[in-house]
């Protein structure tokens, strides 16, 4: 009855909304990092090495980007069991990422850098913490997709939800890479 042919050149509004939402989230982190830059330019800035586990979490989140990419391909190939496995793996990697970051926090605390002492450490806790929340938001979305994939009564083969989810996932991945580079350079 309805064809998608006329829509070839048109981006799906939900995907478009996702891009705007990403611009919005970017602005939030721009706000954070510019506050960091302003504060750093002032007196008594204490600089320290990032906890090494942050590099482990970087590998984890990069891997998860790969798995969600593969999941999307499997979905398009209608290979639903592989798709379900891959999004589960992605979600687990997301949780593993969050765990690594929290380990990083306890590492910082053990080295005399708790939340409420040096402001340079406080920034790491708040910014990285906000980023963790965004990753966990992505995990929730993946869980919803996972449950949906098991629905038997209503089957949808629209690729839009998984495409939107994977765009977001790559975005939070990229956001972490940006933050890592930023924290390493502007210490």
């Amino acid at each position, binding site marked *: 009855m*309805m*064809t*998608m042919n*006329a*829509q070839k050149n*048109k*981006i*799906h*509004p*939900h995907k*478009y*909304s996702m891009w*705007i*939402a990403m*611009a*919005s*989230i970017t*602005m*939030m*982190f*721009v*706000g*954070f990092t510019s*506050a960091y830059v*302003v*504060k750093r330019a*002032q*007196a*008594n800035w204490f600089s320290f090495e990032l906890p090494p586990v942050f590099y482990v979490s970087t590998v984890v989140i990069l891997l998860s980007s790969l798995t969600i990419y593969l999941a999307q391909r499997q979905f398009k190939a209608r290979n639903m069991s592989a798709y379900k496995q891959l999004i589960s793996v992605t979600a687990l990697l997301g949780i593993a990422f969050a765990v690594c970051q929290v380990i990083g926090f306890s590492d910082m605390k053990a080295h005399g850098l708790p*939340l*409420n002492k040096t*402001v340079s450490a*406080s*920034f790491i806790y*708040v910014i990285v913490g*906000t980023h963790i929340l965004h990753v966990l938001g992505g995990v929730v979305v993946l869980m919803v997709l996972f449950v949906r994939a098991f629905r038997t009564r209503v089957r*949808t083969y*629209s690729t*839009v939800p998984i495409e939107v989810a994977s765009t977001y996932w790559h975005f939070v991945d990229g956001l972490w890479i940006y933050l890592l580079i930023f924290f390493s350079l502007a210490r």
Partner: protein
Amino acid sequence: MSNEATLHNQDLAHHGHVEHGHGNGHDGHDHHHETFISKYVFSMDHKMIAKQFLITGIIWAIIGAFFSVLFRLQLGYPDATFPWLESILGHWAEGGRITAEAYYALVTMHGTILVFFVLTAGLSGTFSNLLIPLQVGARDMASPFMNMLSYWFFFLASVVMMSSLFVQTGPASGGWTSYPPLSALGDASIGSKIGMDLWLVSMAIFVVSSLLGSLNYISTILNMRTKGMSMTKMPLTIWAFFFTAVLGVLSFPVLLSGFVLLLFDRHGGTSFYLSELFVQGKVLPNEGGSAILYQHLFWFLGHPEVYIIILPAMGMVSEILAVSSRKPIFGYLAMVGSIFAITLLAFLVWAHHMFVTGLNPFLGAFFVLLTLLIAVPSAIKVFNWITTIWRGNIRFTPASLFSIGFVSTFISGGLTGIWLGNSAIDIHLHDTYFVIAHFHIVMGVSAFFGMFAGIYHWFPKMYGRFMNQTLGFIHFWITLVGAYLIFWPMHYEGMAGMPRRYFDYSNWASFNMFGGLNQFISFVVIIVFATQLLFVFNFFYSIFKGRKLTTPNPWDATTLEWTTPINPGHGNWPGEIPEVHRWAYDYSKDGKDFIPQTVPVSPDESQH
């Protein structure tokens, strides 16, 4: 059908609608299964969500304006006692006189409520929701579900903010800007305790609501326009809502990050904003924080926020002036260009709120220049509004009067902006009543005029009835005259150096001469407030008893919303969505009074 095809998943629900098409557009209860809950409460119809925003906004406006009446009583009659105050405010007005704490709480909540809950959510939330799908030719927003969430987040923010009015230590009272350290230290004042936390939580929820709404507005305008509706054929209202949403999406998140850091300062023991401080004789453990940092983050939103408030009003005024003077808008592309210029400059001027914070004067010079540049697009817009009504065949309705009033207040309030934008003059005028006069006229009164114009103009679309015109005229004249009588004298008070935010000036000999003037202002405030209640009465009375519409296009306008049935159902058009062939401003063209956008261009038509 193309947009439905894009959204094939979610639009299955509306489908019944599209195919059955109910002649006069009343919602088909028999085949749509709408319950009271799904139609009036958790509605996903953009028109119902617009009404929800509007009515919530009206309730907030009454509360916020009433607060201003209360603190104007204190300012106008500092020695008098009003026993009835004690019966509504309790120990906050012991003996019938407002306490200093209550005064600051009232001032803070007046600002917060009016700026965010009324003129952001109530204005842009109402009219972006109502007009975007109707004027671009879409059945609904890109995501009706997110749109519903946007309202309910706003509702939740409202509940939290409202509850802060009833906590024992009172609501936030450190000013609507919530500068630290006052807002960061619970011991700094009683308004900095739980009231401040509720304020921050409510505002964070509000930001989420605003983002969900703005995402949808942008996505709908860019993706869901009907066939033929190219960007340059859109009415100026849509352009204004579009840039408003862009401003919101890019500036509200920065405010949110500022609030997150503030919350950590309050409860996490961090020192983002707190430097070495003594509170009640005790040394705080914090060191090295920068209170100015908060101001940067706050005003990075705070300045775009004033354009978030004024742009929708500008868009609606442009549309209403063209309709009511039966002339095409003058300089359509210049109007679009100046909205764009304002949007761009909005992000580059925030530090003009901070000239006296010890900002580097060299840096200040750039902000002066960029601030004064805003005068250019603003002047273009004013010029175009005046040339639009120039020699027009003006139909005086409450909507057109409020639009003309908007142009008047925007000029008088805008000119004082040029004074304040100069960092040298600002040193004298900063934090005086001059600033109060400036922003109340240019942003408060003007935005309200735009909102009133919009309500009177689109009320027939919302409820299928007219508002009472006579009451509308009374409302307009008293409000216009009253607004000038209230705010004009404040310029003089400000130039004399009278500072804002003070509870009592009576012990200050240099301002004793303003005693009578303050009394006069307060007196006018009460009259104007009563007139707004008249408007509220008119609004609710007309919903049920107003004169019914007999034609779908009561104002003889060209835009698409008037091609829908008088009471459009969910989906807006019973049949196919109309195709657009021309811009929205073909008035008095080739001997015709107006040509709707849906009429194809005939070969012998003159070019516009």
